């Protein structure tokens, strides 16, 4: 049994945890819930030695833990799947999985690659990754990296396993496999702590739920005694109104973006589609199905080998993101906030301001007008409910979900005509997700902007998109037109989508 007594943790300007007491039983999956910035990751990082300085006591099996590092935690029997993806790009899948135990595969000072790869393969299979142990991790997708991290934690075979939003980048299918695995571990008597913003997952998987808000413990209860509304209310102190957004009336005669027979080897396979003005077009599919790859070609990050692209009816060749933005008003919210979305050492304000500097600088002085920057940035911080001590706070010190909000905020500030949003709500809490959905909807419905929504989150897709293209293995398997978005049709549409994916 793992017991936390009176845990308090203070960062400069924030009390991340305030006198939290909790206990976690063996043979249980215990959900830790709370808004973005509530203190979940902080708590988990304390348990596994990543934050060695805190007030209070952590007790594991009647022993007080004084961990100085994660290495200590591993030796004590605690491992973590970190919220942020931390794979080493130039190492192989096997190395990444076995990183903290490489010395086991060493003989006479030499790494036994065969043994290493064989052992890693067990865990690769366990998480249903379809990869060779010897391939490099760098070019893999976010989801694949996420699964590698999970495999890495599993390979430590510790009695306590902490999972900080392990499913944020996974699709339903991958999540289901993971859950089967976690249930097996529960049967074996392991102590599992699970963090997620997806309530369906909590109900499907967990035995117990604890909620923290603003660093304080709010309550703990068995899952049987709880319902959705109750949990949400505990988390955010109000009810959400996950209501039906209504109909979208795109300008069907105005095609803002058209793609004809686009091809890039191994990435985009002879794809064609049209995006209308004021439309939210969904790209749905499993991880690695070619949606992000297509987006990257559209914004000029990758060059296509053949095919044609038209913006507002005019044939164009887009060579870079900067051209996409400046010439054609195309924006792209990356799915990978850490590597591609944010400048972590810079302030929240600077990160959001990145795309708008051109518009707010003096003609002669070339000086950026701080007041104008504030006028655009501060209301966005407010609308997205980004939890920060000040707009000058470094992004690296924000909680994961709040970092994601900054990454989206930057592109909402940019005022693009065509916005490609790639997994916009990864790691965002239920309340904030609703705000982001409202903002995206508002762009299309009231401002006449056109949106391509890439998401593996089916409910999100059904809520926002009125036309969904289904991707599989770089191919478009089919398109569902004229969706109404009414929740009563959701099951039917899901079935149709499932039918398109063989």
């Amino acid at each position, binding site marked *: 049994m793992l017991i936390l007594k009176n845990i308090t943790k203070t960062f400069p300007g924030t009390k991340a945890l305030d006198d939290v007491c909790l206990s976690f039983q063996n043979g249980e999956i215990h959900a830790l819930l709370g808004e973005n910035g509530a203190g979940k990751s902080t708590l988990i990082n304390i348990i596994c030695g990543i934050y060695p300085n805190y007030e209070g006591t952590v007790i594991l099996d009647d022993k007080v833990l004084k961990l100085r590092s994660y290495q200590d935690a591993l030796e004590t029997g605690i491992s973590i799947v970190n919220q942020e993806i931390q794979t080493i790009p130039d190492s192989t899948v096997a190395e990444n999985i076995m990183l903290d135990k490489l010395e086991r595969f060493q003989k006479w000072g030499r790494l036994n690659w065969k043994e290493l790869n064989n052992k890693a393969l067990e865990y690769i299979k366990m998480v249903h990754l379809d990869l060779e142990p010897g391939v490099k991790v760098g070019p893999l997708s976010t989801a694949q990296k996420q699964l590698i991290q999970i495999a890495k934690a599993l390979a430590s075979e510790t009695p306590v396993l902490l999972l900080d939003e392990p499913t944020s980048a996974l699709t339903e299918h991958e999540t289901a496999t993971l859950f089967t695995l976690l249930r097996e571990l529960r049967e074996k008597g392991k102590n599992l702590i699970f963090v997620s913003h997806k309530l369906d997952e909590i109900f499907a998987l967990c035995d117990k739920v604890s909620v923290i808000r603003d660093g304080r413990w709010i309550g703990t209860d068995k899952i049987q005694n709880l319902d959705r509304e109750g949990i949400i209310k505990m988390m955010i102190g109000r009810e959400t109104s996950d209501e039906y957004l209504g109909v979208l009336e795109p300008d069907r005669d105005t095609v803002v973006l058209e793609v004809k027979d686009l091809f890039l080897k191994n990435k985009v396979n002879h794809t064609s589609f049209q995006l209308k003005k004021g439309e939210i077009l969904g790209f749905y599919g499993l991880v690695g199905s070619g949606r992000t790859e297509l987006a990257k070609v559209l914004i000029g990050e990758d060059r296509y080998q053949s095919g044609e692209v038209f913006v507002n009816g005019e044939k164009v060749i887009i060579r870079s*993101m900067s051209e996409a933005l400046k010439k054609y008003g195309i924006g*792209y919210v990356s799915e990978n906030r850490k*590597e591609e979305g944010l400048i972590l050492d810079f302030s929240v304000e600077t990160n959001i301001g990145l795309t708008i500097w051109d518009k707010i*600088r003096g003609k002669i002085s070339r000086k950026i007008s701080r007041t104008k920057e504030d006028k655009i940035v501060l209301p966005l911080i407010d609308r997205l409910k980004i939890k920060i001590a000040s707009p000058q706070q470094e992004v690296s010190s924000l909680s994961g979900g709040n970092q994601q909000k900054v990454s989206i905020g930057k592109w909402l500030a940019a005022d693009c005509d065509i916005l490609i949003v790639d997994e916009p709500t990864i790691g965002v809490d239920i309340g904030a997700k609703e705000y982001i959905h409202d903002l995206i909807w508002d762009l299309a419905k009231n401002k006449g902007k056109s949106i391509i929504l890439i998401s593996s989150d089916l409910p999100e897709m059904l809520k926002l998109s009125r036309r969904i293209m289904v991707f599989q293995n770089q191919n478009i398997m089919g398109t569902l037109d004229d969706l109404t978005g009414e929740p009563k049709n959701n099951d039917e549409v899901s079935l149709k989508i499932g039918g398109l994916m063989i």
Partner: protein
Amino acid sequence: MKNAGEAALEKVELSGKRSTPIKSMLGRRETGIVVPALLLFVFFSLFSDSFLTQYNMFNISRNLSFYIFIALGQAVVIAIGGMNLSVGAIGGLSTIAVGHILVNMGLPGSVAITVGLLTGITAGFLNGIIITKLKLNPFIVTLSTSFLFTGLVYGISKGYPYTDIPKSFTYVGRKSFLGFPIVFWMLIIILFALYYLYRHTVLGRRLLATGGNENAARLSGINTDRMIILANVLSGFFASMTGVLYVSRMGSAQPATGQNWMVTSFAVAIIGGTSLDGGIISSIGLFAGGVIMVLIKNGLILMEANVYFEQAFLGMIILFTVSLDSIKDLLKVLKNRNSED
């Protein structure tokens, strides 16, 4: 009721001042370096009679300017996350170009200056183009081009200095204005211009953003290749400017000019708080870094210490400044640990 955004806006306006949006100019790093620079200055004024003499001050401020000019060539590329191992070679090439034009071709100073600066700009442009278009590591690229440029220096000069530099050409490098060397005034103007560039302009902030995270900057619509090329051009410009000024100061164009710049440039830039990870550059820090550099050299001579130890001092100071942050963290951990027990 006010919302958080409005409240924040109000707070900003009320307090009047605000911390820098990019940790650029007056970041925490600088206090760690400005204070030692001041202390060193006070120390030498108290313990050496000849330190505060007009002659010595003139010398110090002129040397200071040259050190910082050399460092600028490095700092502007470090700030975008790169480096330039060929600063010295570019400086040498410009020196030789100036000497060749003035002495061998007998053309006027204005032509020499123009060609000297264009040499540096072209060399920097070459570095930048190779780094971005061939997607090569700046270490490899500038290491190679430093051989290339040094080779040109010796090829053109055959190893001989150009000594018949017209007297008029030495005006800027030797004369003073309002009690300070002209080059010192140039330094002040340049540092102010850089402050303005990095603190207030879109271009400057884009350069820093590129240094902070090149991928994220590019995917935010910043033309990062252009930023990298530009930083390299700036680096080349500063290197060649320093070369030209050396000729003016020495009254001769020496092919050996620039040979020891590489180390100096890194030392002053790093002591001056330029982040090796990119994204941070500071005018005040660079100034303080230059002060420390010059005082170590000058002070050791004045104190009649063994000047051969100079490099050892420098090494220790660099180590000290780069470890300042880590030392602070260590102290914090220790403090927490003590308070727990």
